[in-house]
């Protein structure tokens, strides 16, 4: 199932999240926007590591993966991504992949 979120979480910059999930597990999460992350490639790796985690735990998993790589975020929080993912799932706006 696929779904998307575009919005500006309170206190954050614009977030675009494309989410694909299957059986409650993330297949792919694409997190885009005008935020900053240092180091940038640590964010890339953390994002790639989200495949296979439960959709309901996306925010917590991102936080864990970023922390493991020493990545600092500005203009976005892992909670924003988790909330966006929950909204995608809850709104039932996904279409069959």
């Amino acid at each position, binding site marked *: 199932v696929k779904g998307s979120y575009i919005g500006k979480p309170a206190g954050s*910059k*614009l977030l*675009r999240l494309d989410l694909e999930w299957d059986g409650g597990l993330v297949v792919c999460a*694409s*997190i*885009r*926007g*005008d*935020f*900053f*992350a*240092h*180091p*940038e490639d640590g*964010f890339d790796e953390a994002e790639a590591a989200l495949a296979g985690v439960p959709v309901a735990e996306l925010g917590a998993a991102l936080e864990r993966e970023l922390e493991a790589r020493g990545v*600092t975020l*500005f*203009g976005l929080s892992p909670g924003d991504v988790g909330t966006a993912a929950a909204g995608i799932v809850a709104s039932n706006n996904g279409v069959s992949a």
Partner: protein
Amino acid sequence: VKAWRYLETGANDAFFNMGLDEAILESVAGGLEPPTLRLYRWKPSAVSVGYFQGVRDEVDLGKCAELGIDVVRRLTGGGAVFHADEVTYSIVVPETHPLAAGGILDSYKAICAGVVAGFKILGIQAEFAPLNDIVAGGRKVSGNAQTRKRGCLLQHGTILLGVDLEAMFTVLQVPNEKLKGKLIEDVKARVSSVSAMLGHPVGYEEALPAFERGFAEVLGELGPGSIPGDDELRRARINARERFSSGAWTFKR
């Protein structure tokens, strides 16, 4: 040993511009050059997108191709920028340098102080607006972005000399064509430029000395402007060719 190297590299295409910023980072990281300030501009006009932005999300690629506008992904995060009538700067210092001390926010503020000083020389009262903007009269006049790699800090930013919102929203994606007019009005209320603030057109050549002096006030003596060395230029061209003009990099997101 010189405290600073100052480069004024004039107008180049987007891929070379970003390639040279990276080559300077490599030079400073390798101890080949001292901390470096560079002032430059873009020819042709270009759109740069932030490291984490989707290029198709942000840019009308067909329109850019039609108008001959370069599209490049930056090493730094932040938002999409239409580079036309502006002075652009980049600064590279080791992370051990006082300008990089105290974390990301403090270093943005410390480096942006040079831009603020340049505005003051032009007669414009501007101030740093966290995280990464400079505003004058409540309107954004400069956007800045920073990355830290290889033990160095690279910050580059745009100093708006003029703003053509029609052109900007021709090449940037707008969520809804029907709302384009309102979007332009909204941005008009939030963005200004040196020319708009002073009430007459101010070009690159006129603005350049003010920002040279502004940065010198904050950084210390810069010395006369120079150009990159042959090896640095060679690496800039390699970076431009192999990274910044490659589809793999541009369409990374």
